[in-house]
């Protein structure tokens, strides 16, 4: 790893100052992606700004129709927190199956979504649970936030402070993990709301996306059988040594059915 300057600010304001004063800074949250990337010398920031000491970025709050989870909340906390388990159990379940226990003990919600790995789990939850990403500057609806492969709507000096997830009537997440990394070869989250059904897919394409056709079918009939005969266009899907686009298209329908069944549909 190349040498860099390390900062551990105690407040968001301090962090912002350090961001603007540094030549080529990177924010570090849990570091579960950034540190391995730096060890491989694929990234060489001049300064690392560690958000671990900013108390404002920790915590989970129940706002009635929604849950607010602060950016530096680790996956293990989301998985075990009583408010999440009672409010949106599917989200707790999703967080509890990210990576391995040691990743879940360091990796954070804010870090994961700011990285927007196409195979990460949280992007599916952002889209399915109609989430709004809160930053130090503004609120960004998840569909605008997740803008492309490893890309988000974040500006270079903007910091994610937390995410507001809308509480669904019921929801579930089903993934087909890569057996080594536990990243999603494909993952589907379905969520039923009073007036709509949302279906979000991760792992299958360059960026997580909503599957409009599946949403339509489930809106009139929230059952696995409602997805019979539907197909996902493989044209835009990822191809790698783990799965072809056609196989991923097949997995998306299969996992959507599993998720609906797990949600009790």
């Amino acid at each position, binding site marked *: *790893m*190349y*040498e*860099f*300057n*390390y900062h*551990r600010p105690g407040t968001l304001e301090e962090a912002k100052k350090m961001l603007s004063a540094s030549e080529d800074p990177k924010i570090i949250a849990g*570091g*579960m992606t950034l*540190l*391995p990337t*730096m*060890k491989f010398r694929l990234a060489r920031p001049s300064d*690392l700004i*560690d958000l*671990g000491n900013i108390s404002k970025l920790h915590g989970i709050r129940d706002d009635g129709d929604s849950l607010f989870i602060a950016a530096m909340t680790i996956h*293990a906390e989301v998985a*075990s927190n009583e408010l999440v388990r009672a409010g949106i159990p599917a989200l707790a379940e999703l967080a509890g199956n990210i*990576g*391995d*226990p*040691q*990743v879940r*003990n*360091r990796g954070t919600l804010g870090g994961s979504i700011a990285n927007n790995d196409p195979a990460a789990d949280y992007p599916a939850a952002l889209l399915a649970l109609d989430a709004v990403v809160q930053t130090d500057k503004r609120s960004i609806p998840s569909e605008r936030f997740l803008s492309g492969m490893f890309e988000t709507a974040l500006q270079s000096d903007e910091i994610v402070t937390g995410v507001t997830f809308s509480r669904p009537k019921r929801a579930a997440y089903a993934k087909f993990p890569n057996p*080594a990394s*536990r990243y999603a070869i494909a993952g589907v989250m379905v969520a039923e709301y009073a007036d709509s059904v949302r279906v979000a897919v991760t792992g299958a394409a360059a960026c997580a996306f909503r599957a409009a056709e599946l949403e339509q079918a489930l809106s009139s009939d929230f059952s696995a059988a409602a997805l019979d005969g539907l197909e996902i266009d493989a044209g835009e899907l990822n191809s790698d040594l783990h799965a072809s686009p056609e196989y991923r298209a097949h997995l998306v329908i299969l996992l959507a059915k599993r998720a609906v069944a797990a949600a009790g549909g």
Partner: protein
Amino acid sequence: MKSQISLQLNGDKVSAEVESRTLLVELIRQRLGKTGTHIGCDTSQCGACVVHMNGRSVKSCTLLAVQAQGADIVTIEGIAENGELHPMQQAFREHHGLQCGFCTPGMIMSALDLLKLHPDPDDREIREWLEGNLCRCTGYQNIVRSIKAGARAMRR
């Protein structure tokens, strides 16, 4: 950039001057001399470097030493008491939970974290929890057996 950090290691206060890029595992092994924590893959996959930081298991190859400023770190050297093996160490020994032994410190530190959540884990919970710990000798059977036995001994 060098900074002075201080932390608790197995109950002792220690401090050291480290570069920003020094990994926690390098600090523990090379500077503080606790070589029970192993570097296997050095890419966050194998879990040979698992230690506890503020009560949670973490991979010390994927943490900067500076991030451990003020933290409470426990390594495999910190679990035996009064010269007696910890019940989990004893269980690994009795149930042949190791062959070459390289992965064992990480396995044990990982297992102890599991027991905080599930004091009486079943086979599936143990196997799922060991997702981040690789063993290339045993085939895991005896590791799972050892962890169950260790958990039993710790509940007594």
